[in-house]
């Protein structure tokens, strides 16, 4: 556990039907900290994010955000508490315009309005009146990250933001996420792309078969990547 934690996950178990997906997952995220969660397919990364967001019910263990427990709240209450989720599947609202998609979650007082999203992702500027489904994968990713930011979250959950994107787009997304580090924002970044994750994160949490098997600083990870790679099946 870190001092001054914004999010504390303590021994959570989650299930899909009878099948257990998470086994006592425990880690925390500090204020303004970027934590990368890495692991193979099926390790429980997305389930961890869904559990935090209240989309997959936690059976045991606790999740605290700020000073409040959120593991019994509904998804919309967790979102209002200040957590935003950008899913791996992106899920653009295909019948809404790009502008409507981005601004759907906007709350009065949020520091992130449409203007700021366009500053981060200038490629979206000319696409505001297109439908969400009419964008390329990279543009959709930018749009849904913008949609995740406009509520003004204190914690952003990013699920595989680099997945399926061309290297040049991944670079662009990475630059924006780096710029976000200057904001008053904590991030949990689920990534398969280890290099991308290590370039952005402060700390790395390694999951295997639904359990946390290692936690290390990103600097340690960059120094000895094999410590993580063995869990990813790279070596």
């Amino acid at each position, binding site marked *: 556990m870190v001092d001054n934690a914004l999010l504390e996950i303590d021994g959570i178990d989650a299930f899909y039907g009878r099948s257990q997906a998470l086994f006592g997952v425990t880690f925390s995220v500090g204020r303004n900290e970027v934590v990368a969660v890495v692991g193979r397919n099926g390790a429980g990364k997305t389930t961890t994010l869904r559990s935090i*967001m209240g*989309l997959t019910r936690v059976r045991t263990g606790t999740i605290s955000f700020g000073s409040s427990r959120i593991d019994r709240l*509904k*998804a*919309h209450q967790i*979102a*209002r508490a200040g957590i*935003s*989720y950008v*899913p791996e599947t992106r*899920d653009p*609202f*295909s*019948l*809404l315009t790009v*502008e*409507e998609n981005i*601004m*759907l*979650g*906007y*709350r*009065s007082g*949020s520091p992130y*309005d*449409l*203007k*700021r999203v366009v500053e981060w992702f200038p490629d979206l500027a000319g696409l*505001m009146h297109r439908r969400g489904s009419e964008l390329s994968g990279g543009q959709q990713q930018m749009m849904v990250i913008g*949609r995740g930011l*406009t*509520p003004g979250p204190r914690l952003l959950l990013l699920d595989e933001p680099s997945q399926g994107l061309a290297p040049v787009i991944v670079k662009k997304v990475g630059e924006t996420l780096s710029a976000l580090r200057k904001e008053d924002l904590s991030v949990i970044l689920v990534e398969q792309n280890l290099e991308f994750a290590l370039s952005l994160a402060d700390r790395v949490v390694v999951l295997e078969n639904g359990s946390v098997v290692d936690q290390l600083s990103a600097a340690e990870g960059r120094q000895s990547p094999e410590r993580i790679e063995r869990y990813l099946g790279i070596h």
Partner: protein
Amino acid sequence: MNADGEPAGVSDAGVSKSGPHLVSIAKVACVIAAVAVLPLMMPINIATEIMIFGIFAMATNLLIGTAGLYSFGQAAFFGAGGYAAGFLLAHGWTSLPLVFGFAVVVTGLLAAAVGLVSIKRVGIYFMMLTFACNQLIYYAAYSWRSVTGGEDGLAGVRRPVLELPFVGAIPFDDNRVFYAFTAVLFLVAMAFLVRVVESPFGLVLAAARQNTRRAASLGYPVAKLQLVAFIIAGAVSGIAGALFGMLYRIVPIDSVHWFGSAYVVFMVVIGGTRSMIGPALGAFVFIWLQGLLSLTWSRWPLLLGLFVVATMIFQPDGLLALLTKRPAWLSGRRERSRS
């Protein structure tokens, strides 16, 4: 987002909305012209009926077209509105605000009760629950003879009197005056429902229709907002039902029958769900065809059914789309279906 869970307007956050454009003005002009011309084309009561079912179909389209809630129980609110207003009018209360206010409150509460039971169910379960509630309300109306008249219907419904400052009392006994009144309510209902659909609230309903969990993840209590939409649709349907009772001076038991729920869905589908003009057009075509076909063959419902089937196969986007784009079967390619 404000305290009620609605998003702040897009224009609040750095992007201004474009002003009224020519297409919108043209649409409004066409609708007003159609409403003005309609009673010249057909018997005044049929024109009035089209206005009434236009209101009913537009209210239903808030659920079907915007929220993606396929309710098969809307006739319950149409009929309940008729009974609520009709009961007052048959017992000597003719104040217009009182009569419509009572109909809106009764149908709003009824819709809240049905919505609470059904709104969290999806797909076929939602349809069946709304259908079952419709049948429950039908049998309640059938049995409650002292209020509804049971099988004979609630007779003796008078038309209310509109008191206007400087003008005085305007009685609705003249069918042309009643048409004008109904047409004004039709236009007001259309403007109101368009405003609802285009509001941030409507935007969230549309988003939730596509992905309920994602909309919830943005902080919206989706079920509550859908319930509000269900109540709005029920209350507006109740106004239509109240007008129907006034038109024929009776509220028949059929007005609360599930057939009405199916018919209004047909109207919405025939006209098209993408705007509020579509359901109004659907109501026009349905009522007009019903009248026309019933004069030509005693088994006219068969022809009407064939027309509905043909529309769904060859013009799935509704008849309104014929005016805006070539149909799929003419252009040789299918439009991607809506999610």
